C-alpha cells in the first residue's frame, strides 16, 4: 500500500501495485481449505470403499443424509462462532426438544403442529437465557452453555421420568398432523436413492445464512462482534443484541432439528444429541471459522459437515473398524485447521 500526493497519477505509478488475481481471491476465502479437504476425503473413500462411491447416487445420498444431521445445526453454530461465542448446549437441546414434542403429543394428546411451535419457542427461550447470561455476566460462553448443557441433560432424564414413567417417548406418529409433519421433515425427496428432505433443509439453511453473512448489515455486525466487540460497540454496532440473537438462533435451530429427528424416528429417547455439540464445532472450524471469532464461513461449515458424513459412511463402506471414526475426525480437524491457516497466510502474502 502506498501514500501518494494528490498530483501524482493514481495507477501504474507504484511498481508494487499488482492486480489481485482471481486465484488469489479464491484462495483467500475461508472456505477454500474445507472444499479442498472435502474433495480429498471423497477421493480417499472412492478408492477404499467396497461399493461404488462415485457412480452410485444411493451412496452419495447415504453420506449427504449423514452430513445433514450435523450440517443443519452447524450453520448457526458457525455463525455464533464467527460472532465470538460457543454453545455447548446445542447437542443436548436436540434431545430436549424432541422429548418435549413427544410428551406434548403422546401424554397430552396435542396435535403435532402446536407442539412444534412450543418446541421452537422453547428453543428461543433457552437461547435467550444463554445469550442474556453471557452478555450480562461476561462469563465465557463456554462455561455458561456448559451449565445449560448439564441442566438440560438432567431435565431430559428426570422430568421425562416424572411425567411419563420412562425415558423414551414412542408413538408420536399417533398424533394428529403427523403425516404432513413427516412429509415436511422426514420424507425422502428422491425415494429411488433415499435422499432425505433433511439435505434440502441443510443446504437451504446454509445458503440463507451465507447470504446473511455476506450481504446484510447483520452479517457485518456478526463479523465485528466476534472480531473486536469493543471497537464494534464504539461505532454503534449493537453487539450485545447481536450475540443474544445468535444464541437464540442456535438453540432454535437445534430445537427444530430435535423436532425433525423425533418425527423421523417417531419417538425420542433421552440420550439423543449428547456429545454432538463438538461435531458441530468441528464442522465449523474445519469450515474456516476461527475459534477466537471474527472470521469464517457457513459454506465452509457445510463442507466440514460433508467431511464428517463422508468419514462416517466411508469407514463402514471400506469395512474398517468404526472406532476409527473418532480418530479420523480428530485428524481431519487438525489437518483442516493447518490447511486453512497455510492457505490464508499464502494468500495474504501474495500481493
Amino acid at each position, binding site marked *: 500500500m502506498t501514500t501518494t500526493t494528490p498530483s501524482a497519477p493514481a495507477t501504474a505509478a507504484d511498481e508494487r501495485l499488482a492486480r489481485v488475481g482471481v486465484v488469489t481471491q479464491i484462495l483467500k476465502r475461508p472456505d477454500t481449505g474445507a472444499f479442498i479437504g472435502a474433495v480429498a476425503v471423497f477421493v480417499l473413500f472412492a478408492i477404499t470403499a467396497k*461399493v461404488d462411491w462415485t457412480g452410485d447416487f444411493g451412496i452419495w445420498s447415504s453420506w449427504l443424509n449423514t452430513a445433514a444431521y450435523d450440517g443443519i445445526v452447524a450453520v448457526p453454530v458457525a455463525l455464533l462462532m464467527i460472532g465470538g461465542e460457543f454453545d455447548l448446549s446445542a447437542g443436548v437441546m436436540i434431545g430436549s426438544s424432541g422429548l418435549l414434542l413427544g410428551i406434548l403429543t403422546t401424554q397430552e394428546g396435542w396435535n403435532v403442529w402446536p407442539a412444534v411451535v412450543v418446541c421452537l419457542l422453547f428453543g428461543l427461550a433457552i437461547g435467550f437465557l444463554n445469550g442474556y447470561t453471557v452478555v450480562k455476566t461476561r462469563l465465557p460462553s463456554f462455561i455458561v452453555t456448559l451449565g445449560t448443557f448439564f441442566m438440560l441433560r438432567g431435565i431430559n432424564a428426570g422430568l421425562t421420568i416424572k411425567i411419563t*414413567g420412562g*425415558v423414551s417417548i414412542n408413538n408420536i406418529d399417533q398424533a394428529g398432523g403427523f403425516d404432513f409433519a413427516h412429509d415436511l421433515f422426514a420424507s425422502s425427496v428422491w425415494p429411488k436413492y433415499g435422499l432425505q428432505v433433511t439435505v434440502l433443509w441443510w443446504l437451504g439453511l446454509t445458503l440463507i445464512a451465507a447470504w446473511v453473512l455476506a450481504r446484510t448489515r447483520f452479517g457485518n455486525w456478526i463479523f465485528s462482534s466476534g472480531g473486536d466487540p469493543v471497537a464494534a460497540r464504539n461505532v454503534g454496532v449493537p453487539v450485545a443484541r447481536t450475540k443474544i440473537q445468535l444464541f437464540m438462533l442456535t438453540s432454535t435451530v437445534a430445537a427444530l432439528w430435535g423436532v425433525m429427528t423425533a418425527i423421523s424416528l417417531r419417538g425420542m*429417547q433421552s*440420550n439423543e444429541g449428547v456429545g*454432538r455439540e463438538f461435531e458441530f464445532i468441528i464442522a465449523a472450524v474445519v469450515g474456516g471459522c476461527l475459534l477466537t471469532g471474527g472470521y469464517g464461513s457457513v459454506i465452509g461449515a457445510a463442507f466440514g459437515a460433508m467431511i464428517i458424513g463422508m468419514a462416517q459412511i466411508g469407514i*463402514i463402506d471400506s469395512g474398517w473398524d468404526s*472406532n476409527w*471414526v473418532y480418530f479420523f475426525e480428530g485428524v481431519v480437524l487438525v489437518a483442516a485447521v493447518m490447511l486453512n491457516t497455510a492457505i490464508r497466510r499464502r494468500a495474504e502474502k501474495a500481493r
Partner: protein
Amino acid sequence: MTELGEQRISRRGLIVKGGLLTAGATVLGGPAAAAAFGKATAGVKVAVVTHGDTGSFWSVFKKGVDQAHNDLKARGVSVSQVYANNDVSKQVAGLNAAIAAKVNVIATSVPDASALKDPLTKAAARGIEIITVNSGLGAFDSLKTYMVHVGQTEDVAGQGAGKQFNAAGAKNLVVLIHEASNSGLTQRAAGAKKTFKGTTKTLVIPNATSDLPGTQQKISAYFKTNKNTDAFLALNPDVATAALNAVPKGTKVGTFDLSPGVISAVQSGKILFAIDQQQYLQGYLPVVFAYLFVTNLNTVGNGAPVLTGPGIVNRANAARVAALAKKGTR
C-alpha cells in the same frame, strides 16, 4: 408359663441353631458373617453403583431399585444409587464413595472387570458385601465378601438369540455393538456366534444412541456393502426400533431388552424376538438379598448366579408383557 417359656426358648434356640447352620453351610460368605451379624441391629445401607445411562433399559432397572427401597424403608434399609453413564472412572468414584460411607453391601455392574478390581478388593477388605448385577458373572468370585451375581449371563443370552435366528432360517447375521467399551456386549455377540449356524459378523458404531438418525444411515450403508446379510441383532432396544427403518425389507430382526417400541414391534411381527433380561429384577433383588443377609445371614445361590434371563418375548406373549411395560416395570 413354663410350657410357653420352654417353647419360646426352644424356638429361639432353633433360630440360633438355624443361623449357625446357615453360617456354617455357606462357607463362601463365611468370614464376613460374624461382622455382619454385629451390624444387624443398625440400619442396612446398600450402595447400588452401575454404569447405566438414562435410556429405557436402565430406567426400568432403577424402578426396581426404587421399589425395593420403598418396600424395605420401614425396615431400616437405605439405598444410594449411582449411574455412571458408561464412564468407568465415574463408576470407580461411586464405589469409592460407597466404601467411604461404610455401606453394608455394594451392588455393582461390571462393564470392565479390571477397572473395578481395585475398589472392589478394597471393599472386600473392609468387610463390605459385594453383589454383582447385570454384568460381571465370575469376575469377582474370589473376593472374600462376594455374595452372588444377579443377572443374565451374556453368553447364554447370546446363545439364545443365535438359536432364535436358526429357527427363523437366517443365514447371515450382523450384530450391532453400540458401545465401544462394554465387554458384556461383546460376550453377547460371541454367544450368538456360538449357536448361530450361519455366518456372524459384528458392526461397531460407537455411541450409536446419541445420534440415532446417523446410526440408521450407517446401518443402511452396511447392508449395501454386505448385500447377503439377512439377519440383524441389536443389543439395545432404542437401536432396534431405529434399525427397523434402515434394514432392507425381509431382514429378520432380533434385539436384547425391552422398550414400548420394541414390544409393539414384536406384536406386529416387525421384530422377531426380544431377549428380556428382566432388569427390574436386577434392581429389586440385590436390595432384598442385602437386607436378608445383613439382618438374618441368609445367603442365596450357593455359588451359582441368580439368573434373571434370558426371557424370550415373541409374538405369542408380547401382548401380556405390553401391559406390564406400560407401568415401566418390564
